[in-house]
């Protein structure tokens, strides 16, 4: 890089300072010292029964989600490691797809399946000739837990199968020779050996469900409040900014601690290899186990998505494209301010901006890491991962609404927020391909007469293009699906797809439901496409270069 371009490398650091550190500091100041002097009594107000309840519920639902997810994923992981069977890799991919879907799509899909306007209720009505809503799950803890299991199943499955596939069966064989059988083999050997993987998976799922926002506001119908939801309600509905700031501080602190724990636990995990060759199941018992686990995964992961697609295409008289057609009309005018199709346009525009910003910053950040001390820079660029989208969004309204940085009216505010969320993924996609370029390639080029700029343009850029493409797709799909921060900072006129889906799902009537389903399907297809391309590119990437 030329001397002129070198300051460019500092751009990502400047970006983090302005749009990550500054908003977080603003929250700290607002929560701890709103008038300039340290005033902790404000924080003490949070120790009210109501806020303690919120905290308790946040923890309880996260714990329950974690335990249930792992309990369900453990047998499935066992089956997937132990035997190879038709559809195994499809099931694994399906679980990962569920994990990368935007929360609003997950919420919409769950609601399309078991919500009061969902498929299961339709079926019950028809089969049992019932009236009304036979199964009312919205606003219950059950539906929140189901959505969390759907969403986090892949986390447990991937970590556990990865760990098991890399371990030899030596210890198990030894235990078997010593007479361990059946449940004792599980309880005394298999599970204790699996502890690092179980702990890591549990911590990660706890982190994700602890900060769950979209699922809870949509499916919980605001009957439940987690820390995330409470921050949002206090800040946006009640405009009680200091309380929201106090809650954010609690949230930020807990998240940093949890992320620290997780990164420690993760170091003990082996690097996941591709699943080893496993034998086919033999005998009816093994086939039964495989069918049970596979069937369960298929129902858990595919049924909601299928229901979503069916719901988006079904009206009172059967198959219809009416909901998609209606996206261009602003039927309820006052509710949304914009026709849904404009939200699609907004989302696409923001996603393209996010992709552009995140790629430039990600490439610069990765180049900076190559040159400078990576031990400090790497965790620094991963920091936004440890901050929930809602706190980010809240930080944006607190910090960026007054001079010197008044960006409230700027159309770039949403892409900037999305870039923060996407940047860790983009950097992680680019860095490996940048690392794989041997220094002698660059040196050869410059000996052959290439100026530093030409070296970058002719050697570095073409060789990182694969990583750039993966990073671009990450940035695009993350931006398309981002909900928490967008809800905070999107103005009615520039609402994004997830925000509009949220608003539509909150309205009664089949029209709103149908439109929400149709938009969710659009988002589902966008993200699935991105997911498929990333999997392809990464698989092809292992061979070349």
């Amino acid at each position, binding site marked *: 890089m030329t001397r002129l371009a070198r300051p460019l490398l500092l751009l990502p650091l400047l970006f983090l300072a302005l749009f990550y550190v500054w908003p977080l500091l603003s929250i700290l100041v607002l929560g701890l010292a709103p008038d300039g002097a340290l005033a902790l009594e404000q924080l003490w107000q949070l120790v009210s029964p109501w806020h303690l309840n919120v905290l308790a519920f946040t923890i309880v639902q996260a714990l329950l989600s974690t335990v249930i997810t792992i309990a369900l994923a453990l047998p499935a992981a066992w089956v997937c490691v132990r035997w190879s069977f038709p559809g195994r890799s499809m099931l694994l991919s399906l679980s990962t797809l569920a994990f990368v879907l935007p929360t609003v799509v997950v919420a919409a899909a769950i609601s399309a399946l078991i919500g009061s306007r969902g498929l299961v209720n339709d079926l019950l009505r028809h089969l049992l000739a019932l009236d009304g809503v036979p199964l009312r799950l919205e606003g219950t803890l059950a539906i929140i837990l189901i959505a969390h299991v759907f969403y986090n199943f892949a986390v447990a499955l991937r970590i556990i199968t990865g760990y098991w596939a890399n371990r030899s069966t030596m210890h198990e064989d030894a235990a078997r020779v010593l007479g361990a059988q059946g449940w004792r083999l599980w309880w005394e050997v298999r599970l204790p050996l699996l502890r690092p993987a179980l702990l890591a998976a549990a911590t990660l799922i706890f982190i994700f469900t602890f900060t769950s926002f979209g699922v809870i506001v949509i499916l919980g119908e605001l009957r439940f409040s987690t820390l995330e939801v409470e921050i949002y309600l206090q800040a946006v509905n009640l405009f009680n900014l200091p309380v929201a700031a106090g809650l954010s501080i609690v949230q930020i602190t807990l998240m940093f601690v949890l992320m620290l724990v997780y990164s420690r636990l993760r170091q003990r995990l082996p690097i996941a290899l591709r699943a080893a060759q496993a034998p086919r199941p033999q005998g009816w018992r093994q086939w039964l186990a495989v069918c049970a686990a596979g069937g369960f995964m298929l129902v858990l992961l595919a049924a909601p998505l299928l229901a979503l697609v069916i719901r988006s295409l079904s009206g009172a008289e059967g198959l219809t494209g009416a909901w998609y057609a209606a996206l261009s009309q602003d039927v309820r005018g006052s509710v949304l301010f914009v026709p849904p199709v404009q939200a699609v346009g907004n989302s696409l525009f923001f996603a393209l901006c996010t992709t552009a910003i995140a790629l430039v910053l990600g490439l610069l950040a990765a180049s900076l890491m190559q040159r400078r001390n990576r031990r400090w820079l790497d965790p620094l660029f991963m920091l936004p991962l440890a901050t929930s989208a809602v706190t980010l969004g809240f930080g944006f309204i607190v910090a960026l609404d007054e001079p010197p940085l008044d960006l409230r009216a700027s159309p770039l505010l949403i892409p900037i927020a999305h870039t923060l969320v996407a940047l860790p993924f983009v950097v992680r996609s680019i860095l490996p391909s940048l690392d794989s370029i*041997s220094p*002698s*390639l660059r*040196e*050869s*080029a*410059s*000996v*052959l*007469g*290439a*100026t*530093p700029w*030409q070296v970058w343009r*002719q*050697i570095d850029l*073409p*060789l990182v293009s694969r990583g750039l493409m993966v990073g671009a797709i990450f940035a695009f799909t993350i931006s398309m699906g981002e909900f928490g921060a967008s809800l905070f900072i999107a103005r009615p006129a520039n609402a994004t797809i997830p925000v509009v889906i949220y608003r539509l799902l909150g309205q009664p009537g089949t029209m709103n439901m149908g439109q929400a389903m149709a938009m969710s399907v659009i988002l589902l297809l966008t993200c699935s496409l991105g997911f498929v391309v990333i999997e392809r590119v990464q698989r092809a990437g292992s061979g*070349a*270069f």
Partner: protein
Amino acid sequence: MLHLRKICKSFGDTQVLSNVSLELQNGEIVCLLGPSGCGKTTLLRIIAGLETPDAGDLRFQGRDLGDVPVHERNFGLMFQDHALFPHMTVAQNVAFGLRMRGQERVEERTSETLSLVGLQAMGQRDVSTLSGGEQQRVALARSLAPRPSLLMLDEPLGSLDAGLRERLLPELRQIFVETGQTVITVTHDQQEASAIADRIAILNAGRIEQCDTPQVVYARPRNAFVAGFMGLGNPVCREWLVAQTGATFAGHSFLLHPAGMRRANAAGNAGVMLEGNLAQRSYEGESWRLTVHVAGKTFRFRLPLEVSPVPEAGARVRLQIDRDWILPLE
């Protein structure tokens, strides 16, 4: 043409080059020879501009190279790992330097250079599909194409197997001589150095021990390191030599050059005589290779086929050495 004066370079606490001076004439082929870690690659990288020397003077055609960046030196450097650009075809690799320097008739020069290295039909091939020898040729063509005023090769044949190396060596030299190319090459193999170079500079621990034609380096090694590295054996001290031969010598350390060793026959009495045990003998077709222990020292030399049989290992043998081949060392 190229003048290096007292070049010094350290990495941290390690002194890699100390006071290296070297001069190159136009069209000359010089080989830097030395064990790994002796600093030869660092010297190449300094000349190419990829490293900056801590001290010393680097001039090319009278011009100080200190402030000339790598890409403006118009040198060529062939890397040990060849460093072919994986995202370009063979022809694109070769054309790269021509394009970067804005030269004209890129395609013509590319195919011309590819024919020079015998790869005219391979221009459109992907570099990942090439064999090791082909990759080496592409790397060579890429360095040669822009007609660098100085070409440097870092262990050019290092990654190839012995058979291929032996075939390519004379070919390489022929290409350089035909094109009048000034070349600095680096190797740790003394045979490779002798086959390719006009002059050999022997590097040891960051300094040049001797710089001469291959014949001189071989026949008149200046010191014990050069003698040892050229595979000529270990030196003996004067006391040992006097005790063994009874003759007188000036100097304190000597090399008994294998080229001067023969088995003593009854008639010949010229030169200096030694007596020892035949430790090993191996038959090499046109000659025998003998290892003889004399009073705690080991000597290895070739013995041309003779009519009289060579004694079995373990036998006492008498050796006769030309006085001219008893070389005083520094």
